[in-house]
């Protein structure tokens, strides 16, 4: 089974600081997703990364994908309180049904003043 490891699982950071969340996966994939989840809410799609070297940015978040290293990163720039949430990466294994995703355990991010 495809394994997806995220680290850190818990991240507490001060407003204005930068940090990176890492997502490693165990088998060949060329589709990687990042989701955000607020407590009691749905999973909100942030990024879909489709190819090696893909980089996408939205506001203070930037995601990248290195398929050779089987690694994706979610970089947070100048964090603000509104970014506090749980962030999940999810991987689609090559050859599996589109939409069958394997999720990491999530990174619970808390941004404090």
């Amino acid at each position, binding site marked *: 089974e495809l394994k*997806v490891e995220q680290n850190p699982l818990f991240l507490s950071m001060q407003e204005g600081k930068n940090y990176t969340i890492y997502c490693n996966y165990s088998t060949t994939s060329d*589709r990687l*997703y990042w*989701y955000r989840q607020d407590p009691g*809410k*749905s*999973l*909100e*799609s942030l990024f*879909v990364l*489709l190819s090696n070297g893909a980089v996408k940015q939205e506001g203070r978040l930037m995601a990248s994908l290195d398929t050779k290293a089987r690694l994706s990163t979610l970089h947070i720039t100048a964090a603000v309180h509104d970014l506090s949430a749980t962030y*999940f990466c*999810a991987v689609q294994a090559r050859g*599996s*049904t*589109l*939409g*069958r*995703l*394997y*999720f*990491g*355990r*999530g990174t619970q991010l808390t941004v404090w003043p």
Partner: protein
Amino acid sequence: EPEVTQTPSHQVTQMGQEVILRCVPISNHLYFYWYRQILGQKVEFLVSFYNNEISEKSEIFDDQFSVERPDGSNFTLKIRSTKLEDSAMYFCASRYGGEGEKLFFGSGTQLSVL
């Protein structure tokens, strides 16, 4: 933005009872999914559904589970005889069908089996 709607938001049931979780996917979407998240654990794939049939299911999705799209708008997950370990948040998801598309998730149904 269009959204996936799930009802109820919370469901409490007794062990051994049948439950039906309901979802209304985004109206022009063609692919439908159920995922679940046991408290403190990963989000796990249960089943995918396209063209009125199951396209893939996980090992979790045993004979106690079934899915149906009864009327062209609703998508349901039935658990025939619930067990304590079925307690989880169940998410419905849908997508239109293109490459690289987002998968849109509903807000979930929290199922508690007593």
